């Protein structure tokens, strides 16, 4: 997430102990459910449940099986510290975690190693993966589009990463007045769940702005749903209201 980053050693370079210590501390921070990334931890169960249900239905897997994703090749774009990549790997998927920030990738690698999970973490971008011709059964594009510079160009690259018969999940925040009130003023200013400036109103993305470039790139929308916070039960849940947080599911026809 920080702007100034040095790419940590490409292949078999000497390891800087101070750097490792710094990354370890950051990994602890990423993975502390009560810490700085608490909102993401809180958000995780609802999106995990959605992904589990949809992937299981699409690929004919048993939704209740703890290894339902065995054998599926899955890409987590903008994986951060690996909050989604690790559950996906536990479910049996062969996970590639991609993040433009090499710091995030180092942090994610350290944590996956301590969790005994084999995840292919790479400091790279969707565009670079597409250019290399990589394809996946499932592409997760969660809470990323609202942070990229050129949405249509980015989505075009993401679409290329989906195998025929594969799925892409996109989760983001709608550009509505309600979203401005809840996701920016509410979450950043009033509740301080997120640091000020995490989201910029102009960069929020309407469903139509996902639909058009992805359809043009050969994907088909399967479903969409809203996600909202239930303060009484202290958890996020699926709703039909897509005005603020929402998720869309696309597939590439075979």
């Amino acid at each position, binding site marked *: 997430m920080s702007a100034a980053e040095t790419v940590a050693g490409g292949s078999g370079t000497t390891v800087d102990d101070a750097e490792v210590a710094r990354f370890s501390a950051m990994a602890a921070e990423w993975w502390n459910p009560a810490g700085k990334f608490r909102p993401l*931890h809180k958000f*995780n169960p609802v999106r*995990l449940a959605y992904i589990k249900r949809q992937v299981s239905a699409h690929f004919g897997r048993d*939704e209740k*099986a*703890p290894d339902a994703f065995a054998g599926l090749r899955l890409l987590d774009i903008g994986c951060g510290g690996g909050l989604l990549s*690790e559950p996906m*790997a536990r479910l049996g998927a062969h996970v590639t975690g991609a993040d433009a920030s090499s710091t995030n990738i180092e942090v994610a690698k350290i944590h996956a190693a301590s969790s005994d999970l084999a995840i292919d973490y790479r400091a790279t971008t969707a565009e670079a993966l597409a250019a290399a011709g990589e394809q996946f059964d499932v592409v997760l594009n969660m809470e990323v589009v609202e942070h990229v510079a050129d949405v249509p160009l980015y989505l075009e690259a993401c679409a290329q990463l989906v195998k025929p018969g594969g799925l892409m999940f996109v989760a983001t925040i709608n550009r509505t007045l309600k979203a401005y009130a809840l996701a920016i003023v509410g979450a950043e200013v009033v509740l301080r769940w997120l640091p000020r400036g995490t989201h910029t109103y102009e960069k929020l993305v309407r469903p139509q702005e996902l639909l058009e470039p992805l359809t043009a790139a050969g994907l088909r929308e399967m479903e969409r749903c809203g996600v909202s916070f239930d303060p009484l039960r202290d958890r996020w849940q699926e709703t039909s209201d897509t005005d603020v947080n929402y998720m869309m599911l696309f597939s590439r026809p075979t």
Partner: protein
Amino acid sequence: MGIQMDELDVLVGGGGYVGLSLAVALKQADPGLRVAVVDMRPREALSKDPRASAVAAAASRMLDRLGVWSKIAPHAQPMMEMIVTDSRLRDAVRPVFLTFDGEVEPGEPFAHMVPNGHMVAVLADRAEELGVELITPDAVSGFASGPSDVEIRLASGAVRKAKLLVAADGVRSKLRDLAGIGTVRWEYDQSGIVTTVAHERPHEGRAEEHFLPSGPFAILPLTGNRSSLVWTERRNDAERLVKGDDFTFELELERRFGHHLGKLSLDGPRYAFPLGLTLARAFVQPRLALAGDAAHGIHPIAGQGLNLGFKDVAALAEVLVEARRLGEDIGALDVLERYERWRRFDTFRMGVVTDVLNRLFSNDMDVVRAVRDVGLGLVDRMPSLKRFFIRQAAGLEGPSPRLLTGEAI
């Protein structure tokens, strides 16, 4: 180089009915989970508990779902009826203020009296049959929680790793102390005397609770012409009675029990245990969850200790199995907090209710007696309220974990 022991998913400290039923519930819902139970007693001594417990309908539905109720049922006495009286010892006739018909559904009694030892033996067999590792006799001597697992040192010198450690080691939980989790404790100047008596005439499945000035005196039906007693006395009196000779004990017993079931004789050892209310300040911390009496030891007045423990088991098993289905780390604090949120309020409420009941009924002031008798009389005349109480006692009110309604997780 020592032998590399297999990493576990869940290690349960304590092989009583809470620990064993949790292991069975987890293993049955998710056979891929690696589960072990450690207990300081040898395997065959796990079933040596001579006491009996009232198992509420919700709990027996869970035991049925876990595949053990059919083996427990032959030794279980259904409670068909419950009466409540409010009396002084010298009262020749104890007016019955409250009677409950004990069915929650046609043919399903609200509770059964079950011998603890037999229940634990059946659960231990079932656990082994499902592939739960029973580590006995051994005990947890220390543990250290890390970012992805907890390293557990056993008294035997073995070291095991698990994703989650569960403390089901009773009201004086050593694991809770090792974790540094404090408790809130109210002491009563009362002890519970527990024993079994044989009587001449059949009890017809009737449970009796007599509110005597020193505290409640409960007669709970066992199979055959036998009953289990939970007899509350002031602490010193209880000690004296239990340690004294049989003759005095039987004499005092008869004064309280009455003669309606004919001649009485003692049919088991007698124990006295101090009564109190112990609530853990937290039910979870990273990689540790408390269940059963380790989380909450309540006054036995309403017979809810065991049933609260089974509720913990059902809720914790459901939370963990669902977390595994989503690929989550089952020892992570945010997962465990779902269990804590689910159980804490219910536990606290039950603790307060039993505390208030005890203070209200262990009292000989005329005003208090008059108020509670009017209250009991009112309850007796209101069928819907009685039904609510009976469903409460059966554990069927409030949002239930799936196992308690007899469903699979």
